[in-house]
Structure formats: structure tokens, C-alpha cells
């Protein structure tokens, strides 16, 4: 088992959804310990999404793979990673547990819910049914790779605007599916076609009405922008 090379990062974040500038301030200070005494421990969650923007190539497994491991190249949200992985390592787990990209969720681990949906080479797939080693050389986009800094992708903005979630757990998968669908000319733009195409993303909270509204609203904005 190779080291989690980005665990050494001690940057912390306070929970303040409405104040991204404050977050940046804390991070840019490299505020080791600054907020640790007062922030809840969960706030120390890895800064994966920011990391990939700040640090272009990490983590890296430079050494030769250990016995039973294979070395792969994975480009995630535009950042190239060299990783030594065991053949039975699942793409979803590698993203979450190695690269600390925890935005992609595990809802069933059996391809039955869609929470783990992400894009591989711009195609939406279930990452829970994918071996990491099979994706050597592939380009992966996760929810963390959608926004441009603090500027949300139109689909993210529309989900926020339309309250297209409740608990938020299926949301990453819903958004990744929606992005893929909106970029796919083969999928009809009518409500029924969107509902069918999105049916691989279960929302147990039942926010389907708002999700559809968000997807259709984002469609208009993305078309307007292009």
C-alpha cells in the first residue's frame, strides 16, 4: 500500500458556504493550526478540489509499483496523476480514498443508483463498476472539476437555484449526468427524454421535479452561452 501523499497537507477550511473569499484567505495563509483549534474536525477534510487547481501534479507514485500493483496514469480534472494501484482497486475508491476527491459518492457500490456517476473521456459512467487499472491513460472529470474557481458550471448554478436536491448525496451524480446529457445531441430536449435519460440517477428524496427544472434551465443558459 502506497502512502497517501497528500495527507500531509495541513490546510484547513472553515465552513462558510457564503464566503469563499474567506476560505481562500485561510488557505493562502497555509493556515496550519490557525482554525484547527476552533473548527470542527470535519472542516479539516482534504481540500481536494482546490488542491487540483493549486498543485498541478499530485499525488504521484514515483516509485516502481509494489508486487501485485500496476502503475497507471490518470488525468483527473485536468491534472495528471501517476498512481500505483492494485488490480482490484475500483476507480471510485481510488478517487475518494487516494486522491481525496470525495465529491463523487458511493450509494450502492453495485451500479444500481448512479451516485458515483462521473465522466471518463467525456462519457458518463458508473465509477463503482470500473477498475482503476482499466482507465490507464484516461481523462476523468468529477464534480470537483466542473466549476471554474468560484464560478459555478451552469448546471451547478441551476441546481442551486431550483433547489434540485434535498440531502445532496445524489447531487454530484445527478449533475454529472445532466452535464453529459446536455452535451449529447442524441438525447431529446423534451421533458420525457430528459427524465428517461436521467433515470440512472436515483434521488430517494424525490426531488425529481426540481432536478428536471434545473436541467432544462441550464440547457437554456448553456445554449445561450454557446
Amino acid at each position: 500500500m502506497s502512502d497517501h501523499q497528500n495527507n500531509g497537507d495541513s490546510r484547513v477550511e472553515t465552513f462558510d458556504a457564503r464566503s469563499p473569499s474567506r476560505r481562500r484567505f485561510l488557505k493562502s495563509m497555509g493556515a496550519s493550526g490557525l482554525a484547527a483549534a476552533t473548527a470542527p474536525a470535519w472542516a479539516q477534510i482534504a481540500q481536494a478540489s482546490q488542491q487540483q487547481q493549486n498543485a498541478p501534479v499530485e499525488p504521484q507514485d514515483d516509485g516502481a509499483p509494489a508486487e501485485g500493483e500496476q502503475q497507471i496514469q490518470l488525468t483527473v480534472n485536468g491534472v495528471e496523476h501517476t498512481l500505483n494501484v492494485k488490480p482490484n482497486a475500483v476507480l471510485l475508491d481510488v478517487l475518494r480514498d487516494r486522491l481525496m476527491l470525495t465529491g463523487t459518492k458511493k450509494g450502492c457500490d453495485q451500479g444500481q443508483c448512479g451516485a458515483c456517476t462521473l465522466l471518463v473521456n467525456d462519457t458518463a459512467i458508473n465509477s463503482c463498476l470500473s477498475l482503476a487499472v482499466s482507465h490507464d491513460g484516461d481523462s476523468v472529470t468529477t464534480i470537483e472539476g466542473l466549476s471554474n474557481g468560484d464560478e459555478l458550471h451552469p448546471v451547478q448554478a441551476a441546481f442551486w437555484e431550483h433547489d434540485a436536491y434535498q440531502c445532496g448525496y445524489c447531487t454530484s451524480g445527478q449533475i454529472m449526468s445532466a452535464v453529459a446529457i446536455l452535451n449529447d445531441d442524441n438525447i431529446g430536449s423534451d421533458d420525457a427524454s430528459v427524465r428517461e435519460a436521467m433515470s440512472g440517477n436515483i434521488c430517494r428524496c424525490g426531488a425529481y421535479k426540481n432536478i428536471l427544472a434545473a436541467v432544462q434551465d441550464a440547457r437554456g443558459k448553456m445554449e445561450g452561452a454557446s
Partner: protein
Amino acid sequence: MREFDYARADSPRQAVSTHGSNEQAAYLAGGTTLLDLVKIDIMRPEQVVDINRLDLNEIETLDDGRTRIGALVTNTALARHERIQSDYTVLSEALLSGATTQLRNKATTAGNVMQRVRCPYFRDGVSSCNKREPGSGCAAIEGHNRSVHAVLGTSEHCIATHPSDMCVAMAAIGATVTVEGPEGQREIDFLDFHLLPGDAPEREHNLKPGELITHVTLDAPLNNGRSGYLKLRDRASYQFALASSAVIVTLDGDTIVDARVALGGVGTKPWRAHEAEKALKGQQVSESSFQRAAEIAMQGATPYAHNAFKIPLGQQAIVRNLTTLTA
């Protein structure tokens, strides 16, 4: 998942030679069946041969009018291919009715052919299951057998349905499976590919150890044929068929010239209903002729405690599909 060795193949020959006759080896394509079953410990390959980089992604029209599909063509790509949509509508519709957008993006043509059953007693790892543990019995026959259990082609050893929609369309169209194996290449008629459970449900198909599907070649489409797939289930999407029908018909006015009928969700293999087709040929388009054919298709069906409704439901899948296509 338990540990396994992993090798990526660069050519079908290399894949076959890596796999060899090792019964503990498995080919990995889209992975939507294999990895699911490895995760729940039902399949325990010691060697996984990844065939995803093989050059088997083409859909070609052959000179004789047939269509050759590479093993790795995804369900999405196949469903959207122009010629499939126009000349094999039933196949496109069947594919799009199956699974989900994401799963279809991964699942391949060959992998879909190789889908395993959804029977909970197969998947739980402990119940009696002749497929998983030959000779142990079939827990489903006297157990809970509503949604993924068959009424056609069952035996006292296994009653699980074949879960594929794609294969039902292929059974109606007619196709040939090309395989590459340790002893070279050969072709298998699609209708002979999947095996009835009989007294050896652990044998699901006609592949010999180590053989790799490289292509599925569809028969030439029927001239002026109309075709469609109708899938009936509980929820409106993302569920295996309770009953489905793949139908192809050609008409001369109101007379049925030719017909192909295959059924899903009700059979232990993709179920071609030859007798129903015979009953349709030469008949006038009418509800009564459709109903008679549907009854013939389901003749000999064996209902179990929770799935007897599949007999009338299978008939309905045929009648409505024919009605829509001939309207």
C-alpha cells in the same frame, strides 16, 4: 473484491492466449456484470484479461446485407448507430430500454450477450443454486420468484430469466456470434448460443473454455420490415423486464407476410417464438390473430408461485407490439 491478476490484451489472439483454458480466468469488457459479481463474491476470477483496448469497436455493413458488430461496441453506440436505428429499430429500442444511460455507456455488445442472471438465490452466495453450485438444488422454484424468474424454458434445476433486452432483439433479428478461441475462430448461431438450463444450468452458453466473442453479426434486415421492442415492468425505467417482446413484421396490405417474435423477461434464454411466427404468417392484421399467436407463444409456460402473471403479461407484450407496428 478478492485479489486477481490483471493483464491487458492488445489483440484477440493475445487475449485468448493469456486466458488460455484457465477456468479461473475472465475477460473484462465493460465490467457491468463481471465487477458486480466479483464484488459480491459470486465470481472469483484469479486472472482478469482486460479486452477493452482491442480493436473491436466497428459496426460494418457486409456485402451480403448483414451487419457486423464488434464485441466492444457499447450499448449506447450500437443503439445510436444510424443503420441500427433505421434497419434494426427493434435492436435500438431494446438497447435503450435496458439499464441506464451510464451503464449503456460502459456495457458492450459481447458483455451484454454474456450477462448473468439476476436471481437473488444465485446472487446471495448461500442459497441452493445449481448455477452457482451444481447439484445443490434451486431455491427459487419454491421460493420468491416474482420478477426475475421465467415461465418458459424452465427446468426443475433452474428458473432464472436471461436478463438482456438486447439479446431478445437479436434473437428476433437472427444473428451469428463469432468467437476466437484456443482452437481458432468459429461461428455460433445466436439462437444456439444461450443454453436452456435443463439439468446443467451452470452451463449458460455454448462457448468453450477460453473462447472470446469478437463479433456479433446480424442477419440482413427483412425487406420493408417494421420492428419494435416493448418492455413491461414495474417502474418506468431502470428495471429488468417482467415481460418484453421484440417483433418484426412485413405486411402486404393487411396481410402479414413475415413475422419474427422473441420474448424477454419470461424465458430462461432470449426466447424466440417460432410457433407464434408461423401462426401469424398469412393472417390478416387483427387483434384476434395477434391474440392467438400470443397464446401460442406462451403455450407450455409453467407458472410459479409469484410469476404466473407473466403468462398473460407476455401475451400482452406481443399483442400490443404487433398492434402498434401494424397500425
